[in-house]
């Protein structure tokens, strides 16, 4: 699949925003480590909302006809893309109500419920982003429940790195985030490994796709002389060298770096580096997510 930069930037940046919102709400709800003051909480939620907004705006760059984007809210019942759009928009009022509750009264039961609901809605939004890809039977590497798990673990991982950096800048060390980081690193690695090992290539062949049931079929003529929508959208070819270099770089940034930082106790002192490594690593992961995905229509093009 063609790795479209607008979608990559959107899923990674908005994912980080939602991950940040999930963690800061849980942090505040259970008073983990040192609680943020109402002002600090408002600031973190503001950053989370800003990240989500920048991401959502970038996603509209992918649309060929953005004036109809509002219609994407209409098919909530059947389309995961519509569900993502509705959940992403519903997140704004809920986040505002929650923030104002925390502002007015930090310890009430209602604010606890609101904090947990905000965290749940943010997680659900990221989950539905993953399901947009996981529901497509046409792309073998995506059509698995592992896809949304990968999206959620990476969103929370980058959110944890971001919250850690913000907390450090406020002189609050949140040790529970170390546990979150470790859990997400392991989960993200397991998801990537499972997809790499289980879905190496498209199932099927030119023989099964054409129904001609002969083992030796070769493409003679593609029927057009220049690249077109189909070859550009689905025909992306990733060279083996580039694939393995980027995979190694990605693993170094989002798996090895957090583990080394946790082991060497650098999470607090080098919070900004950790955040940068995670963000860049997830960007590479998402680029590979598209570039490595093989759409079934490639079979007809002899790819």
């Amino acid at each position, binding site marked *: *699949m063609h790795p479209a930069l607008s979608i990559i930037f959107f899923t990674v940046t908005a994912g980080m925003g939602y991950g940040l919102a999930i963690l800061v709400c849980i942090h505040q709800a259970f008073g983990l480590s040192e609680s943020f003051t109402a002002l600090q909480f408002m600031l973190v939620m503001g950053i989370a909302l800003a990240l989500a907004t920048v991401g959502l705006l970038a996603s509209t760059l*992918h*649309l*060929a*006809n*953005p*004036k*109809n*984007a509002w*219609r*994407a*809210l*209409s*098919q909530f019942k*059947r*389309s*995961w*893309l*519509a569900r993502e*759009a509705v959940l992403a928009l519903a997140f704004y009022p809920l986040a505002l109500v929650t923030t104002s509750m925390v502002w007015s009264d930090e310890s009430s039961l209602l604010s606890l419920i609101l904090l947990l609901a905000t965290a749940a809605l943010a997680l659900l939004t990221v989950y539905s982003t993953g399901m*947009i890809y996981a*529901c*497509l*039977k*046409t*792309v073998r590497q995506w059509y698995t429940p592992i896809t949304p798990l990968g999206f959620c673990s990476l969103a929370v991982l980058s959110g944890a790195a971001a919250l850690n950096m913000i907390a450090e800048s406020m002189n609050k060390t949140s040790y529970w985030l170390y546990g979150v980081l470790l859990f997400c690193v392991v989960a993200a690695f397991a998801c990537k490994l499972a997809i790499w090992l289980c879905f190496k290539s498209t199932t*099927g062949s*030119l023989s*099964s*796709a*054409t*129904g*001609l*049931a*002969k083992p*030796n*079929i*070769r*493409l*003679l*003529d*593609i*029927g*057009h*002389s*220049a*690249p*077109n*929508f*189909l070859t550009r*959208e*689905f025909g992306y070819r990733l060279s083996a060298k580039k694939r393995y270099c980027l995979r190694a770089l990605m693993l170094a940034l989002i798996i090895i770096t957090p583990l080394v930082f946790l082991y060497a106790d650098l999470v607090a002192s080098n919070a900004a580096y950790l955040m940068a490594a995670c963000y860049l690593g997830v960007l590479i992961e998402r680029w590979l997510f598209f570039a490595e995905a093989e*759409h*079934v*229509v490639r079979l*007809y*093009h002899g790819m």
Partner: protein
Amino acid sequence: MRLGLVIDLDVCVGCHACAVACKQWNTSGFSGPLPDFKPYARDPEGVWFNRIRSYEVGEYPDSKTVHFPMSCMQCEDADCVTVCPTGASYKRASDGIVLVDPEKCMGCNYCAWACPYGARELDANAGVMKKCTLCVDRIYDESLAEAERQPACVLTCPTKARVFGDLNDPDSAASKLVKQRKGQALLPELGYKPTNQYLPPRPSRHVATDVKPLGLKQKIAAWVSEWQSQ
């Protein structure tokens, strides 16, 4: 009703007339225009509802060229409709034709991703997804003679490799052909229940290529008989 096409891979000669007739009719039809981009440049391209690929099947000398036209399969369980977030893509209950409402489409390409057949192409000028309409603006047009109320590709095919009909009606010519020639759908394992069916090529005759060259004696005999006949 479940309208669709039956394509005979045995007689298709890969002339691309169906694709051209489709483009000619549809560019001013329901989903028109079908724009061309850089038509006079080195790398011309455009929106097509029908594309023909050619394959070589089997090993020489028993190989065969199979031309393979592909357009929208008008799937019964069309995932392109399910995934559409705006409701622009819809499947008509009356005849099963899958269409795109250009007033609602936001050009997100998601339906094209969901289609395994490459049947949907973005019109980058209008920012709208386009696809085969099964000539919905032709097949019901009562101002045309009844024989002409068929998709443009079917009418133009010089080898009659394309048959249009109701695949739900066991007595339609299309259904009978499918039954008789063991027609099959493409990628049935994905579960989209495509309506269009493909009739497989008939087995080809063996062409002898392992004939030994003539010896000197046979060559002289052949030359003598040729000389005598003159």
